[in-house]
């Protein structure tokens, strides 16, 4: 048993320093803020998931595997690392936040990962179906500049490698049946030649992706041309 009178000491300290209990609303606010930020993180994770789903659904990978000179390298270049890290990062922040709520500590990391990834996947599918993955892609291309654009839109980076036979951009005008000019993601102008009759399927202000070979400083010979997969076919990259 202690010789000190702890009760008296504690009450005396409380009186002397006018210590008061923290108001209840502060605890409620803190708990709510943590839950809201946890849910926001899961929503951002869901947005990242919708972008990942749009990456998985488009046929870039098939075209690259069939026609590119260095398919494995191109695919590695085009993988959405940023969005995968985004998903993992925000789920991680959500986990830390939710663990600090009143009851959140009962969730193990495994249980949270399952719930978090499950929720992100379900919400991600809903957002993707609503066109969100596409909206984010277009927003990045419209507002971001390389290298930031390439970080967040690795598909664009993959298709912006004319030295390795990959070129994408917006068609500016059709010169003749087998020649057109194009502006790429970095704002450079290209004269694209091909042995196909492009006038039947290419129009100005349309984005395309092509596989071929660089034949000059600003010239490219395309052996395969495909439209850029997008719900809205007309798109302009940001000018230099």
């Amino acid at each position, binding site marked *: 048993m202690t010789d000190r009178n702890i009760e008296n000491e504690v*009450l005396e300290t409380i009186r002397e320093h006018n210590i008061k209990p923290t108001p209840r609303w502060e605890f409620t606010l803190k708990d709510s803020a943590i839950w809201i930020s946890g849910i926001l993180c899961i929503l951002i994770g869901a947005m990242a998931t919708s972008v990942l789903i749009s990456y998985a659904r488009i046929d870039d990978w098939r075209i690259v595997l069939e026609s590119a000179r260095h398919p494995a390298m191109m695919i590695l270049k085009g993988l959405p690392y940023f969005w995968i890290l985004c998903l993992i990062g925000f789920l991680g922040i959500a986990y830390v936040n939710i663990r600090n709520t009143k009851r959140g500590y009962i969730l193990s990391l495994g249980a949270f990962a399952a719930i978090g990834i499950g929720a992100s996947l379900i919400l991600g599918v809903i957002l993707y179906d609503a066109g969100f993955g596409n909206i984010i892609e277009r927003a990045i291309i419209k507002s971001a500049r390389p290298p930031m654009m390439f970080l967040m839109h690795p598909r664009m980076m993959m298709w912006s490698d004319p030295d390795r036979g990959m070129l994408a951009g917006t068609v500016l005008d059709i010169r003749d049946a087998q020649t057109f000019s194009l502006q790429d993601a970095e704002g450079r102008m290209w004269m694209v030649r091909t042995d196909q009759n492009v006038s039947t399927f290419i129009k100005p202000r349309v984005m395309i992706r092509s596989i071929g070979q660089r034949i000059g400083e600003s010239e490219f010979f395309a052996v395969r041309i495909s439209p850029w997969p997008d719900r809205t076919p007309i798109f302009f990259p940001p000018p230099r």
Partner: protein
Amino acid sequence: MIHLDPEWLKKTDEDLIRISLTHRDAFAVLVERYQAKLKRYVLRISDVGSEEADDLLQEIFIKIYKNLNGFDPEQKCSSWVYRIAHNTAVSHYRKRNARPEGHLETGDESLLERLASETDISKDVEARERTSAVQHILSLMDPKYREILILKFLEEKDYHEISFILKKPMGTVATLIHRAKKQFKDIAKSHPSIFHTI
């Protein structure tokens, strides 16, 4: 001067928390109920002496007072109080960069016996040596394993309470107890001199 209402002495801990929000002196009853238990706990898990433990106890009760509105009535008051005590003690020895070895008190013998039998060292050791051997082994253990054995066997907390105090899922608590017992046995095996120097 503390003005105590005799009615307060009959109230449950949870009621006292509520009353303390409007009658500060009622908090003294809660302090009186928990000070001995918490001082023993603080001594068990940290490296402080008795005087320093009293200072730490003051700090703990001030924190409890400040957090009265944060008490969740669906939890047991003792678990909540222990959680604050645990966090304060751990924070204290981390600030000092110390490796806490803990002190066990006389009166802990029956509880130490329980720990000894759970970890199977009893069959090789005389009864009177067991208590000291257990104390010595505990002092050599990793703090995170020592504290969980202390909560389970010396503070006699159940898994649910330990989960709340340490803010860990129940599955993690079970794993930690299992690993703690293993480390306890491993230390006992690798330090046979413990049983002969007592």
